[in-house]
């Protein structure tokens, strides 16, 4: 059974060997002449004026996390919507029970001010 995967394994091996091999060829054969200008950070021909490592407001993460919840919610809503006629009342009850915690969560984060920018 596992022998079916031999091709994949070979493919994987060749891919890794090729990539690593090309990198190694470059490292060992490529000429290396470094000078100040070449080592300086380059940004569209301009001198960089600020450090590229900046702090982001934590709000971005918060919004991202809150988004994930509703993203997942949508994932569950689609199959329910597609099978609405078949699942009928039990389906409706189930999805209602499923939605309640999410709504509570939304109300909670709203009143805690998590949605205020």
């Amino acid at each position, binding site marked *: 059974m596992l022998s079916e995967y031999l091709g994949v394994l070979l493919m994987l091996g060749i891919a890794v060997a090729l990539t690593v091999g090309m990198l190694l060829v470059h490292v060992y054969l490529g000429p290396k002449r470094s000078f100040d200008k070449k080592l300086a950070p380059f940004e569209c021909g301009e001198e960089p004026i600020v450090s590229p490592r900046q702090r982001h407001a934590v709000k971005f993460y918060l919004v991202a996390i809150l988004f994930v919840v509703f993203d997942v919610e949508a994932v569950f809503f689609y199959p329910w919507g597609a*099978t609405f006629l*078949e*699942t*009928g*009342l*039990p389906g409706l009850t189930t999805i209602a029970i499923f939605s*309640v*915690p999410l709504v*509570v969560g939304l*109300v*909670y984060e709203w*009143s*805690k001010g998590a949605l205020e920018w």
Partner: protein
Amino acid sequence: MEAEAFDVAALAPLGFVAIGALVTLMLEVVLSRRAFVGEGVDPETRLVARARIGIVLAFASSAAIVLAMYAAIYQFELGFETAFGPGRPMLQLDALSTFATALIGLGALLSVWLSITYLPALRINHGEYYALLLLSTAGMFVLVSAVDLISLYLGLELTSLPIYALAGFNRRRLRSNEAALKYFLMGAVASAVLLYGMALLYGATGHTDFTGISQGFAGGGGLALSGLALVIAGLAFKVSVVPFHQWTPDVYEGAPTSVTAFMAVTVKTAGFVVLMRFLVLALPEMGEKVSVLLGVLAGLSMLIGNLMAVVQDNVKRMLAYSAVAHAGYLMVGFAAGTPEAWTAVLFYLFVYLFMTVGVFCVVIALAQGGREWDSIEDFAGLASQRPALAAVMTLFLLSLAGIPGTAGFMAKFYLVVAAVDAGQIALVLILVGTSMVSFFYYLRLPVVMYMQKRRQDPDAETSSSEIVVLALCAAAILYFAFFAQADPFGTGVRALDVAGRAADFLH
């Protein structure tokens, strides 16, 4: 698609805590909005209002947990047996799951009571606390009735995620943050290991439900065995068995003490129960090999837990290593794997709950002024200042050590008897030997409390909720020391029989 008959009553315990979690979450928002309306509320009023809200929330969550426990005990009395799931069973409600549900509920209830005065004392009285605690409890209810790898994983994550947050609940304290991050990262790795194991088991057997795995397992095979080892490793992490215990001391020390108490008793109960069900249902044939594996884990946990506990200066850290050691004692029962051993394990978990909540409650009773008093020196001369507190602390420690006359001794006794009957002589020798070692560090605290002068003079008092918890735990330890198998008050309930009925889920 046929709508399945859905026995709501069977899921009542789960429903109560889940609804309780949502209600406490909303209650906090509503109450704090009302209390903090208008600008210019001075910090003092705010603090008082917070404390009041905390009490309301604690009552609400206690009510939810009590209802859940009541439902679970009722189901246990009825001898309820029901399986749920679309097409195949996902959750199995039987004597084991209702017993464990009641036990976890008790642990959660006592932890809630511990938190009532502790959270304001540490100034971390935020409303999410009780909701997170209830959510985690709900996860454990799922976990103890899981009969499928999918529901097992779901329950485990629902158990763990709130606890990661709770461990870091003291946001301003670096140690607490460290505990949360460490627990989260290591827990995530453990989850990944568990999932990998599940994938291998599914690949090898073609089933995710425990009984299906046992049928597919008949041939054995390397794939299934590696899957099994990984699943055991993932669960061993949760119950802090060596060599998956490294997170334990840091997390136990860093987390707020009420959270430490909560996870020490409830997560351990849930983890061991689900491991028990998994081993019994999925591997009825695998006796010898698995019991050697579990025996090694047990031996290592007892040795390392007890030896490391000796050199600790922080009481919470010492108790963390002692928790590792106790996980080792419990694993001896797993290595034995007989029905008597399962009974002993369940009885041990029951007794362990009171001892552990008790000791952590004493640590909590000492906390004041926004910090914990949890180094061994902080206990110096406690007996002269708060004699009752020192006395119950000594009782809990003696029980943890397993001195005759305490429930801890009876628990260990049944475990040893079951292990000897199953022929695990080497493990029993390690158990007895390391218990000797454990006397050293358990008895160090009474020595410090009774024979040294008080250095600090905290004016903290034991609050009424703490007195209730301490009295309950102490009474339980004394009661079950003598009446584990007897029934002096004619209630018709014998602790060991109850554990035996719960352990009888196989037959």
